[in-house]
């Protein structure tokens, strides 16, 4: 007999699944279309991040409904749940949480297996592209819905020759829940 399922595995077992290929190819085609639409590769990075943000603010509902996660006490616990349950439940992979700053407000998610990049090889002309920046937006959007304002960026990228994907998350502030945070633009 196997040991009891870990929370992330249980959540992943609970959701409807599809072959990742369709998703991976769709994301790839989106990135390529954006590169055609925008002259500046930085604009593409921003657009991907912004798409991720909009996905994140929706995705959190499904996460809360299906993950059975208890409310997190602090950012440390939140980061742990994101890695072990969130990533597992949606993408089937589990990054490790590492590189905490001494004040406990900044950490990294590290992963070497990433379904977003299957088949992807970055051409020399796209070295400024942060291919996975949608993930940053998703994290930022989802965390904002649970009252945490964050800054998320990719600091290591295997498509650019690094040995791992490293997503750096920094907690800017926790917004009290009775005063929902409004983004004034």
């Amino acid at each position, binding site marked *: 007999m196997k040991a009891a399922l870990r929370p992330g595995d249980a959540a992943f077992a609970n959701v409807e699944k*599809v*072959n*990742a290929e369709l*998703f991976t190819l769709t994301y*790839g*085609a989106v990135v390529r279309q954006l590169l055609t639409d925008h002259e500046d590769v930085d604009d593409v990075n921003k657009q991907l991040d912004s798409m991720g943000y909009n996905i994140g603010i929706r995705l959190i509902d499904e996460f809360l409904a299906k993950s059975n996660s208890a409310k997190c006490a602090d950012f440390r616990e939140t980061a742990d749940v994101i890695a072990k349950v969130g990533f597992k439940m*949606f*993408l*089937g992979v589990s990054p490790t949480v590492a590189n905490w700053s001494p004040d406990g407000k900044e950490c990294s998610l590290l992963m070497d297996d990433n379904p977003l990049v*299957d088949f992807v090889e970055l051409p020399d002309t796209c070295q400024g592209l942060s291919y996975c920046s949608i993930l940053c937006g998703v994290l930022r959007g989802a965390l904002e819905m649970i009252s945490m304002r964050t800054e998320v960026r990719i600091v290591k990228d295997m498509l650019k020759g690094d040995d791992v994907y490293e997503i750096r998350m920094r907690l800017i502030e926790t917004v009290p829940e009775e005063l929902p945070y409004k983004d004034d633009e």
Partner: protein
Amino acid sequence: MPPGSREIAESCLDLLNIELVRSYSEQLKGRPELAGRRVEAIGFQVGQQLVERATKERPRFADHLEVIKFICKDLWSDVFKKQVDNLKTNHRGTFVLQDTRFRWLTRLSSDVPPPGTPVSPSDTPAARASAEAGAYLYFPCGLIRGALTNLGIPCTVSAEVNQLPACSFTIKIKP
């Protein structure tokens, strides 16, 4: 995990599709057709790529009808998790594929914001729902066109929402 065998949550695909439509209709506000064309182009690339892999192990198709049947059965099952319910043709290069429960429309929940839908004169709730759903069909139209084009059948593909979540796709092969 080796590419091609892994699984992810289906909602990732739903959320990406919804956001794709939303983001293009926002970027190209007031120009829904242009937004639709961009989304269609994305679907086209995906369709082209999907059939490279999906036809890898099979003998070459003998004619157009064999290709269309492959789309209705194999590709539809891979992408939309069921087969097409009904296939009609006028035997002059037009094919109509009917799906009574199109997966991507059943997956769209009612709380999806209207993706910059133009106000239509026939503004009944049903008409509005169909118009909103229509914005989500550019991608599958592009996907089907990309698949067929790569299999040697240049064509146009259009979609029509009947009674949600039923819809039909019309393929017109270019002479």
